[in-house]
């Protein structure tokens, strides 16, 4: 049984990343954008795992980095949710169209 070629995994992570970009650019809800960003970060973590396969023996850089990315994503989500909550308290809305006080 032939192993899955690496390029397939890469394309998959690229699709995930692009999905994240697409989501970030089209969502009107701040939470939606946050979720899309999380998706992007997960794609990055996946990338690390994929590449750890071809990394030199004994080096755990890829997998360790993936763990760190996951932790980072969590921290980012926490901070993001805190800020979104604060914005909601002020403006009673988290639609990105409404957060338009600062401009020009």
């Amino acid at each position, binding site marked *: 049984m032939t192993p899955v070629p690496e390029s397939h995994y*890469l394309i998959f992570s690229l699709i995930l990343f692009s999905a994240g970009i697409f989501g970030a650019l089209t969502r009107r809800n701040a939470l939606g954008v946050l979720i899309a960003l999380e998706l992007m970060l997960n794609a*990055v973590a996946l990338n690390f795992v994929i590449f750890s396969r071809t990394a030199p023996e004994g080096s755990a850089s890829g997998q360790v*980095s993936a763990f760190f990315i996951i932790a980072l994503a969590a921290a980012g989500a926490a901070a993001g949710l805190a800020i979104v909550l604060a914005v909601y308290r002020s403006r009673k809305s988290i639609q990105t169209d409404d957060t338009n006080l600062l401009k020009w």
Partner: protein
Amino acid sequence: MSTLQSLAHFKTEIILLIGAFITLFSDSPKGSRFLAGTAALLTLTLAGVAAFTEASQQSLQLFGGFFTLDGATRFFRFGMILAAAASVLLGMTRGAIALSFFAESTALMLFLTFGLIVLCASGHFLTLLLAVEMVSLLSYLMTGFSPQNTRAREAALKYLLLGSFCSAFMLYGISLLFGLTGSLDFDSVRAAVQDGGQRTAAAASLLFILTGAGFKLSLFPFHFWAPDVYEAAPSPVAAYLTVAPKAAACAILIRLFSEVFPSMQTFGAEVLQTLCILTLLAASLLALAQTRVRRLIAYSSMAQAGYLLMGLSLFSREGLQAAFFYLAAYGAANLGVFAALTALSQRGTQDHLEDLTGAAWRNPFAAGCLTVFLLSLAGLPPLAGFLGKFWIFAAALKEGEVFLVVTAALTSMIGIFYYFKILRTLYFSDPLIALCAAPTPLPLRILLILLASAVTAAGLFPSWLLRAAESALR
């Protein structure tokens, strides 16, 4: 060097961490800034002393290569501590930042300083990644720290979303680089990039990483967060954010191009110079139409980052030295501008240019200091900003980048327009309400005098600063 041995050289950062925790818990129930502020200042003083009296002078690779302690780190480290001290002093002024958040905000600032120092010193992409995220998250949170301040929260949201977006790109680039080279520490990556033939992929990952750096440096078109954040964040936070992350971004650019991608310096120079020209032009145009003071300062910071980048993108010894000098001059001047604006402000961060009318008669001291800082930013002799610009232009001409210099000179002239707009409002208008002569509180006075003298002294006797800049080049 092993962990235990490294700790001995990690004194400054440990002091910062411990001090940050202490500040976090020194929230005084009576609601005065004194306790937290003093704790923070004490921490910073100790850290500064530790940094200054650093025993060895040679480059060290700490923690197994994750943290590089060399001349550049020392230069930036000292600068960050000074900038943080200035911001804390600014924060201790009544009205600069909400009382209830002061302790936490100051503590976060100390953590931020720690993160920035680690960022400047990274020797491994993991450190880079973590430090960037730490700095970013802390910045987003500190921006939003204002009670009942809708604008600050909105600014924090924009900062968060755009920042995470750009960071994600940067992380993707790092992962690509990992895939290309199979390792994450700078030396191995450099070796792999130089030998390997996959230039295109390496260039792509470099570009992704530059996205993150460009975001931090508020280059066009990654700059959209900067005006909002600098306008709406509380004064001390905004002051610090204008200076320190930019410095860290410069440090990281230098490290990247000298330790990881030395083979791609020409490519990097082209990219950076293009961004530089775009940033300068965009910032100058955007600043011209501004009537809100803070926003104008934000765009001016963007332009200053452009000049910095001009020096950096040359990758020559003179260019880097000039950029370091300019960074120090810009840092002092920008912090001073925020401090002086706080002293002169009437409506907090929402000041329009008209609110500054005749401010020179209301508060001549602060207005005089503001003049010094603005003239330094505009690049007029005999202040530090003039020398910084002079050397960057000279370094660029030496490399033959005539187009760059001409553009920068033009935008510099446009800059004089808007800086003088502020000055004219300060002085050449009859004071509408001259009776509200508000005295400047003491911490602010001290800060203003120190910064103004620093800027003038660096302009008149620049050798000490130049020597420091040179030592930063290892």
